[in-house]
């Protein structure tokens, strides 16, 4: 059997606990892509799982208007404490946006990507969106530009998009069937009319598919985002994945529905539940046979700044950047140095990985060994691909699955940091409960340090805290812990797991 673990050209035949293209400790989900596409995405945190540990992105909120209504969105409650799409604290003019981008790029040199994602639909605000792109492509040519859209106005915008050298477009496609769409989109604004229900959904779907085809025909990379809404489009998304892949989309990002009553959305108020972590993973795995899946999306705000999973937007509010003097040519030099440094670091890692891949491939020849069961592990990191975050400071954990086939990235889970610092640990108890609930299913929690207090409750919940691999590369540490578990006889496959893996 071809070992998918560390093999860049893994294919769908690889079964068992790891039947996705994204599988592999070494490579991210882009491993099998042609070189010219990899070159386009290697430093794009939203397109490359590996890149998201190193490179940062930002969104500028220049596009407040929207031309459709989605049942998971409510434009009324833009709260600065919420982290979800469609939400922003301040809408910017194109000039303000350009200033902000250059301020961030100069201060966070790892920032490689500027996206316009709303808070409405960027292509429903073409003047504001394209004015921003136009000015940025002149003033900051070292920043990648990308855009995210619901697709309704996409066909008419493709020409203009290709003019601005935007080579990444994300389309949110939740369905390819108007009957499903009628349950997600109450209305669209189309040809000077509001069109309700199924009829509107049908037009939206047609425009999305047409736009997707037009973009891929021009060689523009398209990622498709889908919101998983249990009971509405969950099973249907497998079909969506097939259809968009056949039309040339290169990455599919299935995200969980975010719906709480206090958001005031239709789904939130109607009590529509989001998927469990397990259901989301199952669906992503089901789609993965046909399509590259993105699993590291953080569903960030339309004005997010920083590495995925962090938001440094508050450091760059308009009043703060007003006073910043930006020497962009100088900043570009520094940025190029930082990017080269990261590239060197990644190259060294790739080489180490390739060497190891060979070793594993040789060991993998004998497949008579006993079957071991897959194990989920939670990892606290603040970037760089290493375990470098204290348990108590982590606001999210990355989830990895170790199995006899290797290690693969599954996703992330957000939580409340157990303690924001030394002083507040005393009343951190409820935050710990949240973390334990969010990490359900994980058997190991890897972090750079973990305190005495959370240790007991974590163990009691069946999660072994582990601070022994601080500063080690995540995949190496996960594999090492998995090997230790094996040596301790903790990986004997349970009958049902064996069945699944067969």
């Amino acid at each position, binding site marked *: 059997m071809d070992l998918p673990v560390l093999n860049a050209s893994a294919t769908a035949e690889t079964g068992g606990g790891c039947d996705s293209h994204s599988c592999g400790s070494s490579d991210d989900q882009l491993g099998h892509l042609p070189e010219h596409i990899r070159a386009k995405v290697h430093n794009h945190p939203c397109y490359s799982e590996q890149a998201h540990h190193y490179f940062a992105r930002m969104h500028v909120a220049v596009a407040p208007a929207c031309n459709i209504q989605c049942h998971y969105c409510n434009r009324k409650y833009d709260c600065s404490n919420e982290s979800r799409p469609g939400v922003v604290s301040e809408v910017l003019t194109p000039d303000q946006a350009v200033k902000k981008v250059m301020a961030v790029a100069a201060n966070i040199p790892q920032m490689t990507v500027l996206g316009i994602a709303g808070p409405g639909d960027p292509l429903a605000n073409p003047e504001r969106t394209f004015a921003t792109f136009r000015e940025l492509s002149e003033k900051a040519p070292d920043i990648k530009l990308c855009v995210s859209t619901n697709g309704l106005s996409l066909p008419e915008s493709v020409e203009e998009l290709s003019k601005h050298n935007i080579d990444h477009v994300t389309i949110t496609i939740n369905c390819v069937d108007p009957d499903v769409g009628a349950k997600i989109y109450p209305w669209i604004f189309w040809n000077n009319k509001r069109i309700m229900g199924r009829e509107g959904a049908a037009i939206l779907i047609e425009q999305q598919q047409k736009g997707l085809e037009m973009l891929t025909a021009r060689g523009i990379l398209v990622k498709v985002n889908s919101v998983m809404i249990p009971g509405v489009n969950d099973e249907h998304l497998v079909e969506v994945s097939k259809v968009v892949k056949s039309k040339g989309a290169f990455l599919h990002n299935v995200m969980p529905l975010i719906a709480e009553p206090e958001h005031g959305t239709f789904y939130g108020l*109607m009590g529509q539940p989001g998927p469990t972590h397990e259901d989301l993973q199952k669906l992503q795995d089901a789609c993965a046979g046909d399509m590259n899946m993105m699993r590291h999306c953080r569903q960030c705000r339309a004005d997010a700044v920083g590495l995925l999973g962090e938001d440094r937007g508050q450091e760059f509010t308009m009043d703060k950047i007003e006073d910043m003097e930006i020497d962009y040519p100088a900043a570009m030099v520094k940025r190029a140095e930082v990017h080269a440094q990261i590239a060197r670091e990644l190259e060294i890692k790739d080489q180490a990985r390739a060497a190891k891949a060979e070793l594993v491939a040789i060991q993998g020849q004998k497949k008579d060994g006993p079957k071991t069961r897959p194990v989920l592990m939670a990892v606290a990191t603040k970037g760089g691909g290493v375990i470098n975050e204290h348990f108590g400071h982590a606001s999210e954990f990355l989830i990895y699955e170790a199995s006899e086939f290797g290690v693969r990235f599954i996703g992330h889970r957000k939580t409340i940091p157990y303690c924001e610092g030394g002083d507040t640990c005393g009343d951190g108890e409820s935050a710990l409960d949240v973390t334990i609930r969010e990490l359900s299913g994980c058997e190991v929690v890897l972090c750079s340090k973990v305190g005495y207090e959370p240790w007991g409750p974590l163990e009691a919940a069946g999660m072994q805290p582990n601070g022994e691999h601080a500063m080690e590369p995540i995949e190496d540490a996960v594999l090492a812990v998995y090997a230790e578990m094996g040596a301790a006889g903790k990986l004997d496959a349970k009958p049902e797991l064996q069945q699944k893996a067969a």
Partner: protein
Amino acid sequence: MAFEIIETCVNCYACEPLCPNQAIYQASPHFLINPDKCTECIGDYMDAQCTSICPIEGAILDDLGNPVNPIGSLTGIPMELLAQYQTALDATYQAALDAKTA
């Protein structure tokens, strides 16, 4: 005969470029309609444009002071449910407003 934008407007800009009479303008704390210019789109479009794209139920009133898009007409959220959560939603909305003015 003119429409009026009221305080529940969220300043999303969607209506402004659509107005055939340039009657809509940005103002603080929210967009406004110049009643002398507004024709409710009669003669230009079958449906009034601002009220056809506005995502906020109740944010635009007709000349009798009635919402053109009444509560529940766009989102389909039943009124009882909205009422039930109104206090929580008001708090969220107020917090958002406070954050903006802070």
